[in-house]
């Protein structure tokens, strides 16, 4: 697929880059979904598939990065195009890390010798659901060039943080009261942390998309401003 790139027009190159990123994003999202599914079903084969998928994701990141660097070198793009290329690099980097967290979750499947009691800790699946939704919506915002949607994605991170905190408290109480459950509890704490990080990365992507579309950063803004339940609801 690395045909005579130099010959192609920058526009085409950028379109290609965009589609590559979307493909990578789809894979990253799938990995998280698969990892959680593997956890729910205690399915080691699926967990292995996540680990394999992550290698592919790593390869895609390298490919995208190479493409970006050669675009920068050859076309010396400015303004919006430059912004697009740098943001694509950053987003692909974030997506690669999403894959790593997926792998961490998948690896916890091996530590557990039975299905984890997730219905006793509904936080886990809820976090997974929201984190996946954040990834999906931030990429949706990328496709539709929709800054408001990107911004709304960032607001959902609070709910995930709250859920992780809640999960952590419950598990710690379980550990203190019944040390027999320490094993399962610690595995689930690890899963919670990784899901929380996935949501953080989803937020990063949302912020990058916002910057990409508007040219202004919300990254370190003091307050994102209150937004109604339009998207903050997490659905």
């Amino acid at each position, binding site marked *: 697929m690395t045909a005579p790139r130099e010959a192609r027009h920058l526009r085409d190159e950028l379109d290609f880059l965009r589609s590559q990123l979307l493909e990578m994003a789809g894979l990253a999202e799938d990995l998280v979904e698969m990892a959680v599914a593997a956890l729910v079903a205690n399915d080691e084969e699926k967990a292995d598939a996540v680990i394999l998928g992550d290698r592919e994701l790593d390869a895609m990141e390298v490919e995208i990065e190479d493409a970006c660097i050669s675009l920068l070198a050859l076309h010396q793009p400015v303004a919006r195009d430059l912004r697009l290329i740098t943001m694509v690099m950053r987003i692909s980097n974030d997506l690669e890390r999403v894959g790593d967290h997926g792998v961490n979750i998948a*690896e916890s499947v091996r530590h557990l010798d039975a299905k984890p009691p997730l219905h006793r800790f509904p936080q886990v699946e809820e976090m997974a659901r929201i984190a996946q939704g954040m990834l999906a919506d931030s990429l949706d915002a990328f496709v539709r060039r929709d800054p408001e949607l990107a911004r709304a994605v960032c607001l959902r991170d609070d709910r995930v943080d709250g859920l992780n905190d809640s999960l952590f408290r419950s598990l*710690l109480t379980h550990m203190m009261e019944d040390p027999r459950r320490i094993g399962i509890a*610690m595995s689930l704490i690890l899963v919670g942390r990784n899901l929380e990080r996935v949501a953080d990365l989803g937020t990063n992507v949302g912020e990058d998309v916002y910057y990409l579309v508007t040219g202004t950063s919300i990254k370190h803004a003091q307050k994102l401003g209150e937004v109604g339940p339009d998207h903050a609801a997490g659905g």
Partner: protein
Amino acid sequence: MDTASAPPRALRLRLRHLRDRLLVALCLVALALAVIPLVWVLWEVVGVGVRHVSWEFLTTLPQPPTVGGGGWANAIVGSVVVVGMAMVMGVPVGVATGIYMSEYGDNLLGKSARFLSEVLAGLPSIVAGIVAYGLIVVTMGRFSAVSGSAALALLFIPIVAITTQEALKMVPGHQREASFALGVSEAATTLRVVLPAAMGNVLTGVMIATARIAGETAPLLFTAFNSRYWMEGVDRPTATIPVNIYSYAISPFEHWHQQAWAGALVLLAMVLALNVAARTLWARRARFMAGD
């Protein structure tokens, strides 16, 4: 069109709202029912305790009830020593067992250790006391601080062992591979690479275990027993705060009851401090440990 069904439906609706409000009121009653006694406990311990905690209470030996005055200095020292010795016994054994189970435990010994530490973790605290009584007190022929520590160690070890095992399992395998690939020995890999990476979680396990044993009374009743004097040795009966609270509380002396409250305050302060420390220590590390 709903004229026919309107009156019953409206009535029904009013009833539903009434029930809604009634049940919220019931929840409030539940909150009151729970909060009142709980706050009362704290209030009583702090309120009564504070009046009777004094420098004398913290630094002198107990006096006979007829004399009055006196303190629990020996019990405070005794508690620290008994719990401290339990930790001295428990930490190395627990951590080492955890390391073995996680790193080399894919064999009969590892599997038995895993299964049995889980069994041990379910041991009711008083049963730990029975065991220490039978094995140490009866054999030695007298109550001793060390038998109390052993009983507490039985509660302590499985927590630390299981926590350590899980903490080590969470360290990614490639860190070990990298270390082995550099020709580093098993011991150094575990002690210098794997264990440091898991240290936060291991420490929290130790904290949880300590918080759990610090307030224990039952296993000490017939192991460390009690004493009116300074500790004479780890092989001698020793006063501890929890046991003192119990024996002073069931005594007939008003003066001793007051001291029991003072002791409860001291114990509460120690245990709560440990608990807050365990929770915050781990919560603070939560982000850091996610792997990046």
